[in-house]
């Protein structure tokens, strides 16, 4: 019964994303445009492009996930769905975790899948592209989970968008450092094991504490 509720929330949010296409697509399109503008602006210096590629793609992913974060709880807060979740006999963190999973599937996974294509513009090698994709696969869920806590804390605050960025972007720094670092390590032949281990070590606590902390913050927002 508990997992049925979990998957019901995931399915509902995916269905909603499919019916409000523009919302989900705008963040993904933003990522594509940002990543595409850099090679155009910098010119065809392959060495420079190769060097900046991991950083540019990661910052692009970070900013585009920020765009999507603001809407994570907004609609549910306004139409009362969050109240119903807070009063459900199913533990609220589980339902919030389901929302975060759906959010990642809509706004994080497309970035992971697009990254290798965009990486081609930066003349990244095949190995580097694989590393980039894997690093994003480990890193983007952290963005949704940690960002979700920020979204919950700033819910209902006027000008919450800016506050959310200020609150959450500093927390994304380690993910950015080790995510982009993984690709650089791969390119320079140092091996990526350590970077992936650290990303994983950030992901696991985020999976556990993210929904818990968000549910707590949301209960306060609902008062």
């Amino acid at each position, binding site marked *: 019964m508990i997992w049925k509720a979990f998957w019901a929330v995931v399915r*509902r949010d995916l*269905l909603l994303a499919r019916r409000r296409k523009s919302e989900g697509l705008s963040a993904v399109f933003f990522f594509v445009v940002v990543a595409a503008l850099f090679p155009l602006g910098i010119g065809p210096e392959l060495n420079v492009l190769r060097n900046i590629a991991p950083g540019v793609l990661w910052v692009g992913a970070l900013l585009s996930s920020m765009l999507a974060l603001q809407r994570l709880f907004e609609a549910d807060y306004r139409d009362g769905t969050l109240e119903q979740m807070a009063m459900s006999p199913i533990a609220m963190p589980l339902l919030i975790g389901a929302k975060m999973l759906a959010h990642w599937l809509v706004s994080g996974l497309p970035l992971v899948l697009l990254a290798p294509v965009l990486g081609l513009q930066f003349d990244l090698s095949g190995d580097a592209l694989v590393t980039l994709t894997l690093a994003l696969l480990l890193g983007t869920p952290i963005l949704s989970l940690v960002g979700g806590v920020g979204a919950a804390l700033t819910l209902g605050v006027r000008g919450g968008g800016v506050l959310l960025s200020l609150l959450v972007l500093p927390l994304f720094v380690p993910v950015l450092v080790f995510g982009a670092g993984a690709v650089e390590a791969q390119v320079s032949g140092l091996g990526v094991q350590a970077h992936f281990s650290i990303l994983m070590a950030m992901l696991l606590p985020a999976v556990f504490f993210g929904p818990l902390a968000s549910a707590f913050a949301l209960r306060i927002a*609902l008062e």
Partner: protein
Amino acid sequence: MLTISNISCVRGHKPLFAPVSFSLKPAQALHLEGDNGIGKTSLLRIICGLSPADAGEVLWNGIALNRQHPEGVEAFRAALCYMGHNLSLKDELTAVENLMFDAQVAGQSLSYDKALDALQKMGLNNRAHLPLRVLSQGQKRRTALARLSVTDAKLWVLDEPFVALDAQSFDNLRALLANHVQQGGMLIYTSHQSVELSQSNGHAMNVLSVRLVAA
């Protein structure tokens, strides 16, 4: 049994209403009255555990609903169905989808046929598959109210359930509420209209009435 003991609620350093106490047994209905802004909605939210009370406590079957009794809170939530001003409906989903997802979030399972049946009872038979944004305000409320006929919750807490309903739906809802109470359910509702719930033998049902007064 639901017991409210000496609940008070402070907004902006001022108590909203004089401390209120009552208890509600199975097969009883309670009409919560009071002027605009006296705190009816606040009290209902406190009962449901959405906001904390500034004093007093809410007991469900003798167990105080607070952090010390997580099992008690869980049992209470399983028995609770709250409908406030926010209907928790999604404009992009159809009425049936809304109903089914809502039931699942509340930890219940609802088959497609049952959901359709419930909407039919509220007179939405040919609107069940339209996205909610094309429905009127009253039809949206009816969709939300259809939830009541499929929930197995014992305690219904309804904030102004009769608003924006036409005469037919008004009577439907009255019958639904009366039926719930007769089958041993509990009901708390607010309403500015006087609503008479009648028993199956035609007699008026005895509805408790609590009036909130300013502190």
